[in-house]
């Protein structure tokens, strides 16, 4: 075998012979990859305390604590054990639904997380939906009239909003919608149990802040994808067959243009969870983000670990699901 042949074989990454075998292997490979990532993500959560200068207990208890008290706390939380042992212990507990006890409040971490999670989820999901609801029609309309006044104005707005951090958008919205016009409350929260209208009244401005921060990414991506789909021959086919513009956009253009949008929306979920910290702090919403912020000064390490692991694992799983359902959206990815 010549050097050339060997290189070609290496680069072309020889395919397995059987189709089903290949499929099974790729599913197995993906599952293995997912497990490895989950293990590393949770391990990183446990390893957080190893970054501390000094033992966790001495930091939790402060400089005035006695050596005995420190040793006792380290032993109680297992901080004196080696990382691997701590991790296995944590994993064993986590599988049975036990993420430890909060140092700050002495409540089980899982219980507190479950209390706070709905608020953050509502914010994130509503923000994702609202930003898509703004971005999709705007992007399709702008793309179908490339370089029109509408396109130029909305594309300009999108580039502008892309450069405004969520906390700046939030503060400005508070000023305009809360302080100046008094249309919406400046801060605070009403749970769903006190009525949908009341709940939406409080949640609207924070959701709007998050959505305005997120829509430019969706808009720009979808607009450029729609523009390139519109140049496809099948659009011309549909046009000369007398199909109306709106029908072509809805039926022929939107779907093939939205594959990368869906991937990006899954990634945006992680960004929104993080952005939610800012919004929760600004509007004093009782979600995971403000919980994390409260836990920092109290050095509530089990709680912080719980939040980080919860968010990261959710993120990993959502992306895995999106990857797996990709085939449902693109028939070319389905094998007969």
């Amino acid at each position, binding site marked *: 075998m010549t050097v050339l042949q060997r290189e070609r074989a290496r680069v072309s990454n020889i395919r397995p012979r059987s189709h089903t075998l290949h499929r099974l292997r790729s599913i197995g490979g993906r599952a293995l990859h997912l497990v490895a990532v989950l293990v590393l993500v949770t391990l990183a959560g446990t390893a957080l305390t190893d970054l501390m200068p000094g033992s966790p207990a001495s930091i939790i208890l402060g400089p005035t604590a006695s050596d005995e008290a420190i040793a006792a706390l380290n032993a109680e939380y297992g901080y004196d054990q080696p990382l691997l042992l701590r991790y296995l212990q944590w994993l064993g507990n986590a599988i049975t639904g036990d993420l430890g006890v909060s140092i700050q409040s002495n409540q089980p971490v899982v219980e507190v997380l479950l209390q706070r999670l709905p608020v953050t989820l509502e914010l994130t999901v509503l923000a994702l939906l609202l930003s898509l609801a703004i971005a999709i029609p705007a992007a399709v309309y702008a793309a179908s009239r490339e370089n029109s006044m509408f396109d130029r104005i909305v594309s300009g707005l999108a580039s502008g909003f892309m450069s405004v951090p969520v906390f700046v958008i939030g503060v400005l919205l508070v000023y305009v919608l809360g302080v100046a016009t008094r249309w919406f409350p400046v801060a605070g929260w009403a749970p769903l149990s006190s009525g949908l209208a009341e709940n939406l009244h409080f949640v609207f401005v924070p959701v709007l802040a998050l959505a305005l921060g997120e829509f430019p990414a969706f808009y720009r991506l979808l607009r450029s994808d729609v523009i390139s789909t519109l140049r*496809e021959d099948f659009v*011309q086919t549909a046009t000369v*067959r*007398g199909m109306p513009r709106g029908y072509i956009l809805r*039926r022929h253009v939107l779907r*093939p243009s939205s594959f990368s949008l869906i991937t990006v929306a899954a990634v945006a979920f992680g960004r929104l969870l993080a952005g939610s910290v800012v919004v929760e702090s600004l509007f004093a919403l009782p979600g995971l983000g403000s919980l994390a912020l409260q836990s920092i000064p109290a050095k509530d390490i089990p709680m912080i670990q719980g939040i980080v692991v919860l968010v990261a694992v959710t993120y990993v799983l959502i992306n895995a699901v999106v990857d797996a359902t990709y085939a449902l959206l693109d028939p070319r990815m389905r094998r007969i």
Partner: protein
Amino acid sequence: MSDVLLEVTGARCEIPTARGDVIALGGVDLTVRRGEIVGLVGESGSGKSTLAKLIVGAKAPGARISGRVVLDGEDLESVKPETARGIRGRRIGIVFQDPMMALNPVVPIGRQITEAAVHNRGITREQARAEAVELLSQVGIPDAASRLRHYPHQFSGGLRQRVTIAMALACDPDLLIADEATTALDVTVQRQILDLLSRLALERSLAMIMVSHDLSVIAGRTHTTAVMYGGIIVESGPTAAVFDAPQHPYTKALLEAIPRIDAPPHSRLTAIPGNPPDLSRLGTGCPFAARCANAQPDCLPVVPPVTHPVADRTLRCYHPVDSFADARKAP
């Protein structure tokens, strides 16, 4: 009811580019009678596809087009663009060169076939579906009913082109345009598709425009032939007459470039000297002058006007093949 189905007059198309305007069509007239099969032949850049697209109402982005397209007595430029689009969609079907590009990869073929019928003819989805099954079996797709929900990538190249033919027929048009419909296919499949097109035209008494760069595609299957060069029709007439007695030097050169099976071994093929014209650099005169064996100084100032040397033929040439031969004999 008049005998003429489609009449194109003075079709022009200019496409602005960085190097100046490209004149893709420089004033073309074309008439298609009911049930007539017209061959449109020419090399790359001769404007034959631009003409086909102009007839169905498509154009390159930024292109300026003018000219009259009259379909069955109705001037399509005088009605609202929306109405014209509806009329074209209903009465003209077109099959493009590459079926993979012309079909939407993520829409089942059933919907792609039926959508135009539902929209243009106002029939129900169920009716359209039943018709689509019928059409698919007509174009030779086995097991048609179950294939409606399949996607284009699940068909072979030849079957895919049959699907686009079914699409073109879904509105039961009067005119079918096959724009290089077999160029992208395997040679063995090409023939089947051509036979299918001829059979369909006959069965449905369709008028058809066959656009091709391949003379053999045109030769045995068309009633009349129009030869295009540099954005104009240089010669047209009944296919047999044009092929037997070409009058334009370009047509003659084309026919001489065909390898003949009855020619003696080792005989040389005649190639047309020079290259196809650069449409952005066309002078004012005959576009073929630079490559023409008969070219004279008077070919250069003005494009030759359309003449009718014989009743049903047209010619745009100052020095046609025969007259040149006569002129040489005379002195």
